[in-house]
């Protein structure tokens, strides 16, 4: 049981990290009033571009940087379309996911840019040395050896630590800095913000591009840290869950952290719990009802739907109480702003 829990915790951190990075990016973008449904595409582009750069240069750090850049470049298209050209945010985002999926599948199966010194026939068959796990100096080995929580907390790649470190940073910038408060104002009421002299368009661009960079980093986590490598569609819908997670977290970075590991935990548990079954003895009242229901509810595929259902419930509650201000939903989300054109 201890081994099982340790395994689930370790897998939780691995599943939660890309989710956290992508959700932080989406959160920044949405706080500025721009919904980005292209996260999944940006993650895939970040994963493949980062992987290519890491193989060519031999450095996972350069790979991570290129992955971030690639996500940011794709999100720049979203920014131009939605902010400057006033295109529909839903259409643009969904299309960019389509574009990112298509581009990465297309080039990922090719041998384009693979250096001659390697004999790989395509990026799918290539392999690299990505990020390896690091431990804290001196006390690291002892901490990593702690029972149950040791491997999950103290034996990770640098990206996992960076993702956690990004939470207080984003939280501080968003709620304590001028820039962040201006961004929130832009997401809530762009017209009023504009009147107050806040550069609405520039801040929205910044939020969308930084958000895309986070999505790129989340994708690069897949190809460079865990599981490492490139396979078609390897982000497996994490970008969509990230969109859900932002609502679940009510647009707050710390809650995104909790939510990411919660959702990641469900994911990890689902992967490892196939052998576990819950049942009560036949003498317990209503056993013939409880057992099949419990079997259904703990079925791994049914459990995989829980994050989406949880998000839907949070969304309903948040809207129901009309507490949008307390909940943190940007009131001008999905509303493109134009100054004098319309």
């Amino acid at each position, binding site marked *: 049981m201890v081994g099982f829990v340790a395994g689930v915790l370790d897998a939780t951190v691995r599943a939660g990290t890309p989710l956290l990075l992508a959700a932080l990016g989406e959160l920044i973008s949405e706080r500025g009033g721009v*919904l980005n*449904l292209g996260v999944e595409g940006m993650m895939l582009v970040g994963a493949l571009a980062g992987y290519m750069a890491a193989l060519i240069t031999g450095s996972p750090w350069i790979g991570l940087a290129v992955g971030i850049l690639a996500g940011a470049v794709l999100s720049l*298209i979203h920014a131009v*379309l939605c902010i400057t*050209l*006033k*295109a*529909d945010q*839903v*259409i*643009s985002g*969904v*299309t*960019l*996911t*389509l*574009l990112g*999926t*298509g*581009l990465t*599948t*297309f*080039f990922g*199966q*090719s041998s*384009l840019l693979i250096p001659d010194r390697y004999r790989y026939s395509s990026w799918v068959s290539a392999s690299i040395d990505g990020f390896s796990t690091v431990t804290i100096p001196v006390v690291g080995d002892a901490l990593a050896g702690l029972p149950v929580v040791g491997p999950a907390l103290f034996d990770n790649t640098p990206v996992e630590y960076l993702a956690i470190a990004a939470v207080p940073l984003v939280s501080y910038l968003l709620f304590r800095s001028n820039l962040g408060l201006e961004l929130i104002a832009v997401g809530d009421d762009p017209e009023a913000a504009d009147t107050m002299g806040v550069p609405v368009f520039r801040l929205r661009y910044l939020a969308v591009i930084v958000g895309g960079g986070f999505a790129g980093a989340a994708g690069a986590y897949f190809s460079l840290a865990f599981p490492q490598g490139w396979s078609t569609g390897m982000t497996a*819908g994490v970008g*969509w*869950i990230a*969109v*859900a997670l932002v*609502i679940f977290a009510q647009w707050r970075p710390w809650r995104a952290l909790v939510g990411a590991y919660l959702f990641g935990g469900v994911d990890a548990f689902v992967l490892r719990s196939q052998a576990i079954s819950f049942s009560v003895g036949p003498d317990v009242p209503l056993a013939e009802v409880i057992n099949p229901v419990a079997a259904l509810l703990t*079925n791994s*595929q*049914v459990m*995989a*739907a829980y994050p*989406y*259902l949880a*998000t*839907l419930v949070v*969304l*309903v509650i948040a*809207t*129901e109480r009309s507490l949008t201000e307390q909940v943190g939903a940007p009131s001008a989300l*999905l509303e493109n702003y134009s100054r004098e*054109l*319309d």
Partner: protein
Amino acid sequence: MSVAGVEIDVSAREEVPAWLGYATPLFTVLAALAVGGIALFALGIDPVVAYERMFVETLLDPFERTRVLIRGVPLVLTGLAVYVPLRAGLWNIGAEGQLYLGAVAGTWVGLNVSASAPVVVPLALLGGAVAGGLWGLVPGYLRARRGVNEIIATLMLTFVGIEVTNYLVSGPMSGTGNVAVTSELPAAARLPDVIAVVRTVLPGASLPFFEPLHAGVLIAVAAAVAVRVLVTRTRFGYEVIVTGSNPEAARQAGIDTAWIYVAVLALGGALAGLAGAVEIAGEQGRLQAEFSPGYGFTAIPIALLGRRGAGRVGLAGLFFALLFVGGSGMEFAFDVPAEITEVIQALVVLFLITAEFFKRYRVEVRLPGRTRRAGAAGEGE
């Protein structure tokens, strides 16, 4: 606005010039093909030869031509599933999930109701439409009564629907063996082959298609016609359009917009559910996990391209189907991934929404050092 000395003036157009209306679709497709050509060129493939294989040969070959129609069926039906709510100003991002549940219900009826084909097939299609409709009704209700954003709600329910399907095909509905797939549908539960029927009725008729073409094609055409009539010829359609263009004014005019919201999302869900049932009963013959290559998501750009009418949704669906089928042919011929078609589809939409801007606004660019033309827009800066 001025960037690096270049002055850019943007002003709203009073009316769209006629030539722009015609040039836009042409421009977007050509631009998408040109940029897609760069990707092909990067892999050392002559784009002209590749596109000839993709479009010309696909349309000349009777087998592939039929494949375009078959692929077009779920694309047109899900395209309509997004189109109907869009006319009321709502985004149905969840056609994919509704499609899955429709396929589940249709397959269940096909496997469990033993009767003759004229009974089972309509029952299966009806079951699919009802299941998909219920899956659309939930976000419709949440939107109408509780103001819950339908974009996120339909999206979340999509993933729930896919997971439910995964559970069902690998558990309660699983056929023999461990793979996540149901048993084969009995012949009575399959859609009939249109070509075979025509051959029996008119022996010796020369047909432009010779491959089996299931009756789903007729269902898709009928659905497009029905949606067109509903939107343009009925009171309900009128109320949908008024709600879509200005919900506040619609309420003032006494239109029950809450009812419209519920109705369009339920109807959209029913169309997507029908698509799922038709795809299984007509094409795939059994339900397996992840059976859809994202029809319900591709439906979103299709509905955007065709948002001015159900007939255009049909054309856009066929165009995307042509890209899919042509892409597979090209993959076979040149050993390049067929996903170049996804890239081209995405580029068509991206160029289209770019062009929309230039249709709505007049943009004037003045290079530095030039004197202003008299009467140029943007005097009052």
